[in-house]
């Protein structure tokens, strides 16, 4: 790999560095780059520096302008990073495939005429930079090589890599860069934010995910999922049909347009197994499906399939788990 640094775009959510950046920094350390550096934009950036350093960033570029949260990230982020890219000349920028990560990478690609590859699962650097990604609902794996234009931009699926911190070392260098925000980006403002209160482990981090679909028939039945998930210290997910019906919030949606989860066990209850759903959960170590239709496509990828009524099975499961823990 040539001499320029590898950058990782880091996000801060609720005062915590989002896991994607730590996963990508861990991977970046193994790419043979001269330097691994992080970029963090927004009011919480300064507080993120230590954690980014512990995961391998030798320099963290921060810009703490409120515009990065009062406006949308894409335009202001790209305007701010463009001059920094011109002077620091990174080889490669790794982005978590989050909503803001995608917005920023798309903006930068068009602004600087840079190649961009999305949905990455792995990356290799040698004579060329090659990204492995998936298409068609994760049924096919594509390896794509970047041409000569630099920096190359690559977005990765959540959990493509496992984060690990380094033994204690020197604190990273912090470089504050001025925010550059074009007037046209001030036309789009975030006027309100809402975050549903969640209890238990985050969906993306839980070792057990119990998900419900249209087959649960009514929103009240999600209570049963919460009981089972609670007994397993897991989280509750949902198919889009359940989200669209207004039974549960979007933050619980698993799938192509929702979250990607990789738990030890995924229990799909009353979910048919549409490609757009399975994209988000097929990476689970084991999949259990409860569906009353023996032909449901979900059974094609389930390690254990139960043909039956989801509510009946879930009630029995709850009772059996209770008596075990009782």
């Amino acid at each position, binding site marked *: 790999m040539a001499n320029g640094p590898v950058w990782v775009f880091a996000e801060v959510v609720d005062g915590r560095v989002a896991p994607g950046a730590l996963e990508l920094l861990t991977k970046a350390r193994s790419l043979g780059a001269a330097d691994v550096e992080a970029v963090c934009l927004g009011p919480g950036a300064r507080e993120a520096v230590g954690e980014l350093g512990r995961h391998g960033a030798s320099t963290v570029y921060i810009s703490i302008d409120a515009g990065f949260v009062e406006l949308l990230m894409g335009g202001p982020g790209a305007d701010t990073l463009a001059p920094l890219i011109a002077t620091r000349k990174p080889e490669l920028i790794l982005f978590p495939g989050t909503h803001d990560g995608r917005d920023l990478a798309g903006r930068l690609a068009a602004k600087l005429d840079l190649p961009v590859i999305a949905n990455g699962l792995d990356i290799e650097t040698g004579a060329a930079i090659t990204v492995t990604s998936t298409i*068609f609902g994760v049924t096919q794996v594509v390896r794509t090589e970047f041409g000569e234009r630099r920096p190359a931009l690559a977005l990765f699926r959540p959990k493509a890599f496992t984060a690990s911190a380094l033994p204690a070392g020197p604190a990273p260098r912090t470089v504050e860069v001025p925010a550059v925000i074009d007037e046209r980006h001030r036309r*789009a403002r975030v006027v309100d934010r809402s975050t549903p209160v969640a209890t238990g482990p985050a969906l993306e981090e839980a070792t057990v995910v119990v998900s419900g679909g249209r087959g649960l028939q009514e929103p009240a039945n999600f209570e049963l999922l919460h009981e089972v998930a609670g007994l397993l210290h897991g989280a509750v997910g949902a198919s889009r049909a359940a989200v669209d019906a207004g039974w549960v919030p979007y933050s619980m949606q698993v799938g192509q347009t929702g979250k990607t989860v990789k738990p030890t*066990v995924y*229990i799909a209850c009353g979910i048919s197994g549409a490609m757009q759903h399975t994209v988000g959960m097929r990476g689970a170590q084991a999949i259990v499906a409860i569906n009353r239709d023996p032909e449901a496509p979900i059974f094609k990828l389930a390690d254990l399939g139960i043909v039956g009524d989801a509510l009946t099975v879930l009630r*029995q499961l709850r009772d059996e788990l209770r008596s075990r823990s009782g």
Partner: protein
Amino acid sequence: MNVVVCVKLVPDPNTPGQLDPETHRLRRDLADAVLDPGDEFGVEAGLQLAEAHGGEVRVVSMGPERAVDAVRKALAMGATKGVLVCDDSLRGADALTTAKVLAAAIRREPYDLVITATESTDGYSGIVPQALAELLGVPAVTFASEMSSDGSLLTATRQTERGSETVVTGLPCVVAVTAGVNEPRYPTLRGIMGVKSKPLERLTPTDLGLAASVPTPTGQTVVSVTMAGQRQAGEVVRDDGDGAHRIVELLARLRVI
């Protein structure tokens, strides 16, 4: 309000298509191709805004000749006219090339709003909406699960990983809608009959003045395509009252209990 909706022809998601291992391109003949189900929401959103505020819905697509079917479906739903940019040089185009072509086709006429899906169902890079907005020099609201407009400002609910944000933006802008933003209408018989009389232009990159800049020459090359390791179907059992117990056994084997 003049709305442009970007649409794509994709292999029917229920019978996913395959990449040709020789050419590394999509083998369109292998699968039935349809208007991307994700784009139907965009077409519907555009029609609703044009109906509320006056104006027309233009549909723009890039793809093989067959993509004309996707444009026709949008016309049958109620769009006024369509453009298909189609050329051999665009086969296997990457996200940035796609955005350049769409931007050039959109710019040919004045517009107030450009609507796309959040991502296509086949490639799902999700890069095109923001790249398009940058090329057009306008803001973009992605992951919009709701939107409304008074004709000069647009208010959208943007889904985030943890909840949602309310975004207010001036026009023109790009909005990438999520599936579920509305209930797409079915084309009526009258709509389908009317398609023939609606303007449907076919353009090439040369017509758009892009011959020199697309496809982006130093971009990226697909080097291999393989089938992903498929999950093997495991045991499927009928619940005779011991289904729950079977699950508990599995959980114990995996040491989660």
